[in-house]
């Protein structure tokens, strides 16, 4: 079947030749895939705007010998507009796209849960009901959980001793009890641990009530946890304020 039609979120674009782009997308059914969009950098192209990062699209591709080509594209949700109009949304959103691209490492292998999580995350980000950082932190924890690195913020990640505990170790997967605590583990307060649990479960009432100092500390721990399990560090994360 040379033609495929799917819903997708545009993860990134790269210039190709004079006026084309290679578009990397996370599709609903096919997982991560790449396709050439011909002539989109020229003025006459009507596709260009629809194939920008963050766009939620309905896309048709033609299977080529080396790379697929975009033959048709319609906008489902123009998420790029609200996200790039606000610099804080942009840096948080870009980190979400980079994370999705990294976690869904293989091309053309379905990643349905990651697809819905990213779509939901970007829509929540664009909706501006919560701080961009909280949306990003929640996304990072859940994305890693789907990928098999579910953190624990209550019982001990090593021995299962019921929590809450006041020690956190990224290599061991989250909360650690006083017996299992490795040297150099972070020592967050109970409030920060509860906030992290709320970010993981999407308990926005708790997240939105958190004080700024706890939010900062939780973000630092989420960053440490993400960077550890993603092996290579995310380039865009340090640019999130």
């Amino acid at each position, binding site marked *: 079947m040379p033609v495929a039609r799917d819903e997708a979120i545009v993860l*990134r674009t790269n*210039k190709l*030749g*004079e*006026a084309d782009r290679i578009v990397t997308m996370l599709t609903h059914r096919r997982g991560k895939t790449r396709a050439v969009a011909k002539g*989109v*950098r*020229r*003025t*006459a*192209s009507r*596709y*260009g*705007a*629809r*194939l*920008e*990062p*963050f766009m939620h699209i309905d896309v048709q591709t033609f299977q080529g010998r080396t790379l697929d080509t975009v033959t048709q594209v319609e906008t489902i949700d123009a998420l*790029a507009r609200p*996200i*790039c*109009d*606000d*610099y804080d949304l*942009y*840096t948080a959103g*870009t*980190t979400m*796209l*980079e994370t999705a691209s990294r976690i869904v490492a293989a091309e053309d292998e379905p990643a349905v849960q990651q697809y819905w999580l990213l779509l939901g995350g970007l829509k929540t980000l664009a909706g501006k009901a919560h701080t961009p950082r909280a949306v990003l932190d929640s996304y990072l924890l859940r994305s890693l959980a789907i990928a098999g690195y579910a953190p624990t913020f209550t019982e001990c990640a090593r021995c299962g001793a019921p929590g809450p505990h006041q020690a956190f170790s990224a290599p061991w997967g989250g909360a650690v009890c006083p017996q299992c605590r490795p040297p150099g583990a972070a020592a967050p307060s109970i409030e920060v641990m509860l906030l992290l649990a709320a970010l993981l479960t999407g308990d926005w009432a708790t997240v939105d009530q958190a004080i700024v100092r706890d939010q900062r500390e939780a973000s630092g721990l989420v960053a440490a946890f993400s960077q550890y399990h993603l092996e290579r560090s995310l*380039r*865009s994360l*340090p*640019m999130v304020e």
Partner: protein
Amino acid sequence: MSTKPTTIKDVYEGAVQDLIDELGRLPGVGPKSAQRIAFHILDADPADVQRLATALVEAKARVRFCDVCGNVAQAETCQICADPRRIDTVICVVEESKDVVAIERTREFRGKYHVLGGAINPIDGIGPSDLRIRELMARLQDGVVQEVILATDPNVEGEATAAYLARMLTAIEVKITRLASGLPVGGDLEFADEVTLGRAFEGRTLIGS
């Protein structure tokens, strides 16, 4: 290490491959084009090739970036910054020198430029400190500039860069405008035709208050 003796053929193949590799690193040149250009050069008259090589080396040696605006220049300041007929009160901020060329073609703009050297692109590791934003802020300190036109590309990176600049500039007493919509979103500014770009300049919109 190869145990094969080095023959004339090996050296020849190496030189051709080096040429193809170097050409292939140029923007917009794929492996096939690189090969085509390489064999064109090999077929060409030695004098023509020498002229091309001289032009490359001379351009690299003599062309520099304007100390004021970051545009390509042959001296410390570019022709536009040095031109007394250009208005000092308006600065148009663009991503690349080629955008200056595109805007100059419209003949709509009589002010000066500021070339950022790209757009904010976190996935590629390009943040605000990698662009000439500090230099822009420095140019606005003396209060001469009344308006800053944000003419970054109408795509995600360009819009986000404009959003960042607009936020930085709110601290300064200056009118901030953005090129009017009508420019193709997702496109490069350099591809916009004169009429569209000229219209976008005339209808530029105020950002913030």
